[in-house]
């Protein structure tokens, strides 16, 4: 768990007993000390935590704001910067602050076939790929729109919100972007905007995207209002999850059990997940402190928790 409690600096805490007790990392993620004339960066918050490849026991990755990548090889006790990204000569061009919240690194993905094959997402910066365990990186943003930039087609500078790689078909990636929903089937390098198949009144803007662990063609999103002033809430106050079962060619609205009106839910990019049951269960948490669950792939929803603080992240613990 990443924590930035109140006034204090960021740290990472680890529990090995399902949350009963927590132990702080002895060496939290931190950038290296800047040399003379170098940009001095300090981790403001740890935004993303991902376990490493199954073959690398104890390995974890962390993404931070400002955008930085860190690795632990001892289960999260000590973290070191991944210099291949943090000190990459192109980093200052790839990453732009862009928003009042600053930039941050998220969606750290490891190819289950190869621990050296990594992807990361940066808001704002784009999606990047490494083939050598993080030593070097290349942008992977062809076909992705960036309507907030003056040039229509740029190699980086995009705003992916959440990127997902399918565990059974690792050449397939989806991502929810500030400018739409996309799918990529490697070895292609050009993303396809599958969100164009969403109903026009709904659009394809949102934060999270989650994949069915058993089916690379099935994914769920939580569309939000990205019109005019970008309130980032459920469109017209009518929350709904949308599901594709054909890799984005068509999308179906799923809202049974959700409020019918006056419910301006916001679901952040890490606040939606699936479980691993045979009939896939889905869960999402709102910034208003509610957790909603479906035991039947989104067909019907019920609220399972209320009155919590703002929810940043929901993960199924198995």
């Amino acid at each position: 768990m990443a924590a930035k409690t109140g006034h204090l600096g960021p740290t990472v805490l680890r529990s090995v007993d399902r949350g009963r007790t927590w132990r702080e990392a002895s060496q939290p993620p931190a950038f290296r000390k800047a040399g003379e004339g170098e940009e001095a960066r300090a981790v403001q918050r740890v935004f993303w935590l991902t376990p490493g490849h199954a073959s690398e026991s104890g390995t974890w990755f962390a993404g931070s704001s400002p955008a930085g990548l860190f690795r632990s090889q001892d289960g999260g006790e000590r973290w070191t910067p991944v210099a291949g990204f943090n000190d990459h000569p192109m980093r200052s061009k790839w990453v732009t602050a862009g928003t009042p919240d600053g930039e941050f690194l998220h969606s750290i993905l490891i190819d289950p076939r190869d621990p050296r094959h990594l992807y990361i997402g940066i808001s704002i910066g784009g999606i990047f790929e490494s083939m050598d365990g993080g030593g070097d990186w290349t942008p992977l943003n062809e076909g992705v729109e960036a309507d907030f930039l003056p040039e229509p087609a740029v190699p980086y500078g995009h705003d992916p919100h959440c990127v997902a790689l399918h565990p059974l078909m690792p050449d397939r990636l989806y991502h929810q972007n500030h400018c739409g929903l996309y799918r990529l089937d490697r070895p292609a390098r050009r993303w396809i905007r599958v969100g164009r198949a969403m109903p026009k009144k709904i659009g394809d803007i949102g934060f999270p995207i989650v994949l069915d662990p058993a089916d690379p063609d099935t994914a769920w999103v939580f569309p939000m209002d990205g019109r005019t002033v970008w309130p980032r809430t459920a469109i017209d106050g009518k929350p709904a999850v949308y599901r594709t079962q054909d890799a984005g060619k068509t999308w179906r609205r799923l809202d049974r059990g959700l409020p019918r009106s006056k419910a301006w839910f916001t679901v952040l990019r890490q606040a939606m997940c699936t479980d691993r049951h045979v009939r896939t269960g889905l869960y999402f948490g709102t910034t208003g402190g509610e957790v909603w669950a479906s035991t039947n792939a989104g067909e019907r929803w019920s609220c399972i928790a209320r009155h919590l603080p703002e929810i940043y992240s929901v993960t199924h613990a198995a």
Partner: protein
Amino acid sequence: MVRIASPLRSYTSGASSVTVDGATLHEILANLDRRFPGIRFRMVDEQDCIRPHMRVFVNTSEAKRLSEPVRAGDTVHVICALSGG
């Protein structure tokens, strides 16, 4: 003497003030961290800057840098800045 802000007292087993030696704030905080591992990083970042929501005073003067000298008998106050009302 170092007076500890309440959010940091989980590191000092609840102690609101501790006695630590040092001729500068840098030394004081290094010695504090030796006694209470991890406490320094919650107040000072990896570039040795006092974090934005923390304020450090030597007696009644606010310190902006860790090179600030500290004399015997001085009190260092570690305080959480007012943030958000």
